[in-house]
């Protein structure tokens, strides 16, 4: 993107400065397979930079900006492979609360979410996974939650926005960590982070915890998931861009048969095809941000377009980067594998390419010849 075209240059520069000062691949490696899997001090830094509040309105202590600004930050942030849950907490969870209808709860939580003091997670999927936020088996009845949630990230949140089915249709409840009846088990993710499998047994709830209910809850969940899905596309774009840069640099310096391997046409064409996939990802994300800013009604359709392209492209660039690196690419000491594994996580999260192709086919049935 040319500089004139990018209104978010300053936000991007801030992430570049963060990347140089506050994080490194060594830090990312160190945090792998640890608990909670990210650094709370770094989360605080991220909050001080304002990124946790980008999409939270100013009246709740945020910056009141939109998906375009968030995408710019997330794309750059993802290049660092930092495990801090910026999209899961500051987009997915925050949006489910923000688009709910409990004003008192918003006033209570959103300023803390924006300032980084409260780290929320959205607990919306259940054992089978899937991308339909209304496929809920967890029950809210008799003043208690009963059921189970899966793929919750971050697993170690300060509280969970839990979707449930109530007499009034879908509902979203805020449940703080440590509440009686709520237990968290952990499942390891490919990139060394971990997600939560939450069990809810007679977790007592009161109306003050009800973030959204009925149609509002359904719409808030769908909007949160769609926004986070587009933002996952931005993260994938960041990961694939950096993976491709690293691979191209390796092609320039790795010598075999007396020449840099990047001079071989078979590998050059392969690299160009990866570059094309990255550019297509950029194109669809750019268009999605432009079009949804002008008309938010197509959010779901754009989310599926973005995620199907970016998931496939991210996975392909990750896999083929390993191949182009040769033997060293399969060694854990080589950084390229870290990018593949993050691409795997971001691809699977919120629906992979195949899932979103199916959704696109439903949302946008083909138009026959007139």
């Amino acid at each position, binding site marked *: 993107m*040319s500089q*004139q*075209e990018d209104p978010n240059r300053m936000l991007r520069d801030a992430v570049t400065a963060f990347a140089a000062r506050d994080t490194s691949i060594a830090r990312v490696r160190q945090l792998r397979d640890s608990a909670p899997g990210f650094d709370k001090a770094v989360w605080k830094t991220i909050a001080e930079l304002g990124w946790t509040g980008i999409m939270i309105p100013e009246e709740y202590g945020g910056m009141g900006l939109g998906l375009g600004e968030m995408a710019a930050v997330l794309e750059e942030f993802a290049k660092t492979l930092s495990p801090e849950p910026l999209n899961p907490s500051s987009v997915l969870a925050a949006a489910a609360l923000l688009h709910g209808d409990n004003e008192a709860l918003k006033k209570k939580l959103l300023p803390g979410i924006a300032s980084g003091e409260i780290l929320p997670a959205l607990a919306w999927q259940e054992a089978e996974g899937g991308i339909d936020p209304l496929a809920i088996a967890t029950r809210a009845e008799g003043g208690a939650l009963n059921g189970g949630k899966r793929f919750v990230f971050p697993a170690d949140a300060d509280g969970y926005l839990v979707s449930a089915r109530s007499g009034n249709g879908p509902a979203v409840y805020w449940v703080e960590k440590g509440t009686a009846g709520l237990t968290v088990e952990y499942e390891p993710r490919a990139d060394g982070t971990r997600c939560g499998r939450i069990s809810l047994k007679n977790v007592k709830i009161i109306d003050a915890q009800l973030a959204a209910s009925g149609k509002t809850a359904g719409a808030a969940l769908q909007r949160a998931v769609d926004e986070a899905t587009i933002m996952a596309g931005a993260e994938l774009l960041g990961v694939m861009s950096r993976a491709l840069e690293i691979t*191209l640099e390796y*092609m*320039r310096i790795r010598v075999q048969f007396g*020449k*840099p391997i*990047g*001079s071989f*046409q078979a590998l*050059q*064409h392969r*690299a*160009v*095809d990866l*570059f*094309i996939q990255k*550019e*297509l990802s*950029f*194109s*669809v994300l*750019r*268009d999605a941000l432009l079009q949804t800013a002008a008309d938010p009604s197509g959010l779901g359709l754009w989310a599926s*377009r973005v995620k*199907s*392209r970016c998931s496939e492209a991210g996975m392909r660039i990750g896999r083929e980067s390993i191949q182009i690196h040769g033997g060293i690419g399969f060694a854990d000491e080589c950084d390229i594998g870290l990018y593949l594994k993050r691409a795997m996580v971001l691809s699977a999260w919120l629906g992979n390419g*195949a899932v979103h*192709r*199916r959704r*696109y*086919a439903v949302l*946008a049935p*083909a*138009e*026959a*010849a*007139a």
Partner: protein
Amino acid sequence: MQAQDWDKMDDEAFRLEVRGFFRKEYPEHLRFPAYHLRWADTKDWYKKLVDKGWAAPGWPKEWGGMGLSPSKLLIFIEEQERHGVARTPDMGIILLGPLLIKFATEEQKKQFLPPSLRGEYIWCQGYSEPNAGSDLASLKVEAVLDRDEYVINGSKTWTSYAMDATHMFILARTDKKAKKQEGISFLLVDMKTPGITVRPIRNLLGVEVFAEVFLDNVRTPAKWLVGKPNQGWTMAKALLGFERISIGSPKLAQTGLKRLDAIVRSQGLTQDPAFMDRYTQLRLDVADLASTYSRFADLLKRGETLGPDVSILKIVATETFQRLTELTLEAAGDAGAIGGKAAFRKDSVDILSPFYNARPATIYGGSNEIQRNILAKNVLDLPS
């Protein structure tokens, strides 16, 4: 017809004006032709464009063009595609005109531009040769100066519209000792000159659009050399601007998708999940092509110049369209080898012509493999 300042007009108003003219004046039977039409088919339409003052939308007004800015020119082309307006033998307008305007002498401009605009001179392009395809710079056609004339020998091929052309612009070697790109000149030739033989070549559609052109001691005036001697390669390269985006237009693929959908429904393929996954992937590919096209178009509209990365557009557009025609053949099943309009339940669709037309698209204008070489070197900065 008084020259109008189109750029003062609002984009949407301009679009409607262009659309209205095509709707009113363009012959219905020539819409969305299955293959490139010959001059005999399109000359009446071209005459209408001339009378309207719209024959050369990209040329400056002083030479009789519409003087459109890049963004207005894009709109013009988009409307042409939307209505299915055929290309005329337009090499003189699209390729030669801008080159003459930039590099030719005043005398040459006066001699060649007005009759080209009026459709009295029809041009063909003599670049490729039997042994100079992707490696165009190794071309062998030679032009030797003999007092005030160049004597040209050799043969050109894949020359579209050579049978219709009155004139030809060619790249010929004028210095055999120089490095291969540096000994090439840009010359104009009258097709009636003795020594020219045109042998039409039948293509896979069974029609003759291009030809081989033999040049046997063909004499052309030395003053018909454009630019400086041995600068032909650089000049020809410098003008590969606008086609690089128009070749990436998603229109062809979008129209093809509608055709495919009619077949998908009549064959009951919507119930086949394996087919539907690939079909949906194709639809997403076409949508992402459109997003990529609009991204480069927006750059042009803002007056920025396109970088070498625009080559991805040609690759994506042509390969997406190829996949589309392949899936169409597959969806057609038994009808996938029936020529002409094959009947499906409700519709009749030409399956084969788009499939054939998609083949040369990845070959001409620098094959997609050459485009990948260019991207690897100039954009990805890979070593050679």
